[in-house]
């Protein structure tokens, strides 16, 4: 027998939401700086325990460099808290910037379809994501 748990049925899995954000900045923002500032902002607002409970994750592979968009995951009840924590960001890497939420979806597939550009999606497909 393989040492691997079976995939949980959908009713047993935790509910998730995927929130797409756009970075508004005059200068180009690197993915590294972006992740750093997002994690710091969320940590400052909802704390370590809150971050752990909300199942927080930033999808680096879904970063849309062209439109400065990225997707992150949290639990449904924490969507507004995440929105607030990112709204409190005023600068990224000492340059003025702010975040704007584009929408919330229940699956990565929908968030890709709704908010990411076709070119990004093509790139993801080529990489097998």
């Amino acid at each position: 027998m393989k040492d691997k748990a079976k995939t949980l049925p959908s009713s047993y899995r935790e509910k998730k939401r995927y929130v797409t954000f756009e970075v508004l900045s005059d200068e180009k923002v690197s993915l590294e700086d972006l992740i750093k500032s997002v994690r710091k902002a969320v940590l400052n607002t909802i704390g370590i325990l809150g971050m752990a409970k909300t199942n927080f994750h930033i999808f680096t592979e879904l970063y849309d460099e062209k439109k400065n968009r990225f997707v992150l995951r949290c639990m449904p009840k924490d969507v507004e808290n995440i929105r607030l924590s990112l709204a409190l960001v005023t600068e990224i890497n000492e340059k003025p910037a702010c975040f704007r939420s584009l929408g919330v979806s229940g699956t990565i597939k929908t968030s890709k379809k709704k908010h990411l550009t076709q070119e990004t999606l093509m790139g993801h497909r080529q990489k097998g994501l």
Partner: protein
Amino acid sequence: MNERKFYDLNISFGENNKEIIKRAKNLGLSGICLVHKYSESGAFLDYIGEILDLRENSPIDIVSGVMLTGDNIEKKAKELRRKVELILVYGGNYETNRLACESDYVDLLCHPEKGRRDCGIDHVCVREARAHNTLIELNFREILESPAGLRIKKLNLMKEVLRLCLKAKAPFIANSGAMDVWGMRGSRELSALSCSLGAQLYPALVSNSELPERLIGINRGKINQPLSGVYLEGDEL
């Protein structure tokens, strides 16, 4: 289905108004109020002229508003009622807060908790605000510009303001209070503030969309009246 129209009713009127309008459109706002700090009549007339110019080519709704400070707020508000669409009061002092809540001429009480150790309003204020339809503001800039330690205190005071508003069913609104484009925030981010501080999602959304829209509609009707209480034929009452 009609899309919700979101408003930000407290953005400072300055030199980069066109940039502000562009950013507001980008952030998904349907209307903004460019607020002038009332001081003298000459500057006020220039402000009104510029608002009319901006409104002509704007993709979003531009609302005129005046921020009143100091003494004689009631008198100034009465004077300006039929000249501007919104009258805001600079809160922070209990007496000013109470006066703004009790006045029929005032539309919005800004940051009642500013510079205080308590939230600046009590049950009397919120009841009066409900009776006189004065919106109580949660100012996003107050949080944004305060350092980490003070931010907790500010959020706590705002939570208290919101709790009182919800208890007395007084109208509230979350505004950015932006001085430039970088202080501006999107419609859902502003609603997220009220939502995170204790309001339900639906009232938080309504407070930033339908409530200001209705208020602006009523005030525009008042400006178009030939005399107070007299309506032109065809106008809605």
